[in-house]
């Protein structure tokens, strides 16, 4: 139970609380317009202050770190498992909480951990304070488990903050609370095996990682390939075939060291052969001429000689010519072997052609040899190219092999995930069977609260599903904000009862006016009455803030709600709020 809230801020309106129901009223000032809300009165700030004193609300956007407030201490005095403790903290020094043991209770020895380190007064880090509170109030294990319950996660149900979206769903104390977090927290508070939910969450995250791995493996694949291991196998076989083929090519590669020289030689040979062919073509023409000459049996006519002789006499007057008879003899002796000369000439020409043809054949043979060499052998750069292609193919084969193994692993993990999921589901079902009485009590606790408000009682359904325990709330036939908030009221009453029974409640429950605003007046009155009675019955403190116009006027029961109002009343007039001054 909380005894008081206080501050070093002089204008702050301190409150002293009683056990059982405490109602704080915020008045609507006469000067306020109809549309004006009472945000300035500071009702919600009371809830935030309690969180702040218990180590939460320390982030930069926190109300208590605003310039107007940060230099002041705010605190609560409360009963921490039988010990009266004052916890104060300031926004300027938000990392620390100052603790004082107010009474001389020996119950401090029963704490699982001494938050004051054996002293009457201590300043501790807010993180340690939070962790110690988890152990003292909720009996959390010394070392927090991954995804396991933590102080804030549980405490938030007992002091829901409108600013965190805590009044949207009964199951969630914050709109940002993850389903796994919700399952773990509620399982813990009710007394179910919460480790099923943490293991389930670990499983889910590992499945997420597997999916990422799978995606990475698939992204790494060549275009047009899916992650289908069957296709991958084909691809792997084909690439391996490439590797084998190229390995063989590299192995049998015959290198020609003077490849470039041989290329030049081949070109030179071609030029030579062409030159010889040209020469043969010329000689062929000559041979033709000779053959024509030979076939015409006409030797130069003696007439021509005579004509030449006569002309010489005329043309070359100063020259003493030989007698024609001498010339005729000379002529005949020269011409006598004309045919022989021509044939000799012809033979020589033909021989030349033959010689060239032989030479050409030789050159051509050599050229063929060189060309064959060039075809069957390769230069060094060809060899290097082949080798680098082989390396590429090998790298690709290796890559595919790795992806294959990743995908196999993924497939195995997915299969294992399904098995583990089923195993956890069975464990959850067993847990539900073993805890049947507990579940019945929770359902009945909810129904009792619900019945107090409505004729048609709402239901709390708790059932195992493959994703974990499900907590579902239904109230027949109606769906409105008022009904939804009434469900939250019933749910919190159920939680309070179950947690108190397990001895893990903070001893108080705070309901901000945001919860009651949309609820019908009659239901509101019944809810407050039920809350007051239950608080008395099982011994917890129930703190409620209400707007004055929301306070039930047309009373349907004889319950004296007015008696539970505590002072001072807050107003939205200047100086009337919790902090006593206006700020943004």
């Amino acid at each position, binding site marked *: 139970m909380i005894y008081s809230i206080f501050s070093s801020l002089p204008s702050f309106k301190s409150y002293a609380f009683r056990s059982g129901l405490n109602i704080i009223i915020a008045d609507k000032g006469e000067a306020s317009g109809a549309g004006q809300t009472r945000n300035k009165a500071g009702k919600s700030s009371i809830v935030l202050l309690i969180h702040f004193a218990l180590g939460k609300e320390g982030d930069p956007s926190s109300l208590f770190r605003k310039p107007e407030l940060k230099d002041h201490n705010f605190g609560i005095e409360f009963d921490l498992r039988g010990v009266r403790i004052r916890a104060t903290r300031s926004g300027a020094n938000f990392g620390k909480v100052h603790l004082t043991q107010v009474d001389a209770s020996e119950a401090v020895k029963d704490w699982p951990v001494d938050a004051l380190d054996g002293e009457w007064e201590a300043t501790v880090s807010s993180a340690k304070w939070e962790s110690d509170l988890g152990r003292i109030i909720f009996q959390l294990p010394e070392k927090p488990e991954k995804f396991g319950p933590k102080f804030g996660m549980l405490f938030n149900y007992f002091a829901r903050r409108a600013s965190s979206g805590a009044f949207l769903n009964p199951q969630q104390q914050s709109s940002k609370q993850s389903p796994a977090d919700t399952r773990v927290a509620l399982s813990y508070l009710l007394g179910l095996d919460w480790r099923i939910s943490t293991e389930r969450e670990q499983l889910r995250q590992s499945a997420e990682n597997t999916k990422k791995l799978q995606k990475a493996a698939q992204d790494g694949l060549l275009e047009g390939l899916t992650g289908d291991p069957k296709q991958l196998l084909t691809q792997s076989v084909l690439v391996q075939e490439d590797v084998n083929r190229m390995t063989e090519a590299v192995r049998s590669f015959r290198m020609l060291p003077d490849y470039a020289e041989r290329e030049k030689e081949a070109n030179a040979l071609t030029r030579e052969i062409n030159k010889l062919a040209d020469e043969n073509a010329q000689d062929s023409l000559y041979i033709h001429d000779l053959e024509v000459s030979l076939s015409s049996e006409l030797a*130069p006519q003696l007439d*021509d*000689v005579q004509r030449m002789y006569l*002309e010489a006499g005329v*043309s070359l007057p100063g020259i003493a010519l030989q007698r024609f008879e001498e010339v005729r003899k000379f*002529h005949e002796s*020269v011409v006598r072997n004309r045919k022989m000369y021509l044939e000799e*000439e012809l033979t020589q020409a033909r021989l030349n052609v033959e010689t060239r043809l032989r030479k050409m054949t030789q050159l051509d043979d050599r050229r063929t040899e060189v060309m064959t060499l060039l075809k069957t052998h390769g230069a060094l750069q060809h060899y290097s190219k082949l080798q680098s292609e082989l390396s590429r193919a090998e790298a690709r084969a290796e890559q595919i092999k790795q992806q294959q193994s990743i995908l196999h692993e993924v497939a195995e993990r997915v299969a294992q995930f399904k098995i583990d999921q089923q195993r956890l589901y069975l464990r959850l079902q067993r847990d539900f069977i073993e805890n049947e009485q507990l579940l019945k009590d929770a359902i009945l606790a909810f129904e009792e609260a619900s019945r107090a408000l409505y004729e048609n009682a709402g239901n709390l359904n708790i059932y195992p599903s493959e994703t974990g325990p499900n907590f579902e709330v239904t109230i027949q036939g109606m769906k409105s904000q008022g009904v939804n908030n009434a469900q939250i009221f019933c749910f919190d009453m159920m939680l309070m009862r179950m947690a108190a029974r397990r001895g893990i409640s903070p001893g108080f429950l705070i309901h901000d006016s945001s919860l009651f605003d949309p609820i019908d007046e009659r239901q509101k009155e019944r809810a407050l009455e039920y809350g007051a009675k239950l608080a008395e019955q099982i011994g917890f403190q129930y703190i409620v803030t209400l707007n004055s116009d929301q306070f039930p006027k047309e009373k349907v029961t004889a319950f004296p709600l007015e008696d539970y109002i505590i002072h001072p009343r807050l107003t939205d007039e200047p100086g009337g709020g919790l902090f006593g001054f206006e700020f943004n």
Partner: protein
Amino acid sequence: MILPTKHLPTERALLTVGAQLLMHLQEPKSVSRLWSDIKHDPSQDNSISFDWFVLALDLLSAMGIIHFANERIARTTSA
């Protein structure tokens, strides 16, 4: 036919051809050898026919510059 005319280019005139032949007759040569040398002399027009070659020789013989002896054509030294 001996001297160049309108229809006979200089290089074909017998006198020109004869002069060329003489250049190849530093030593006595057989007819075939001389014929061959003339045909293969790159500095000269060697497209002449054998018959024209013989006529050129005849001219040189008529002029007493060469004579035929021992199956060789030779320059006549006294000329």
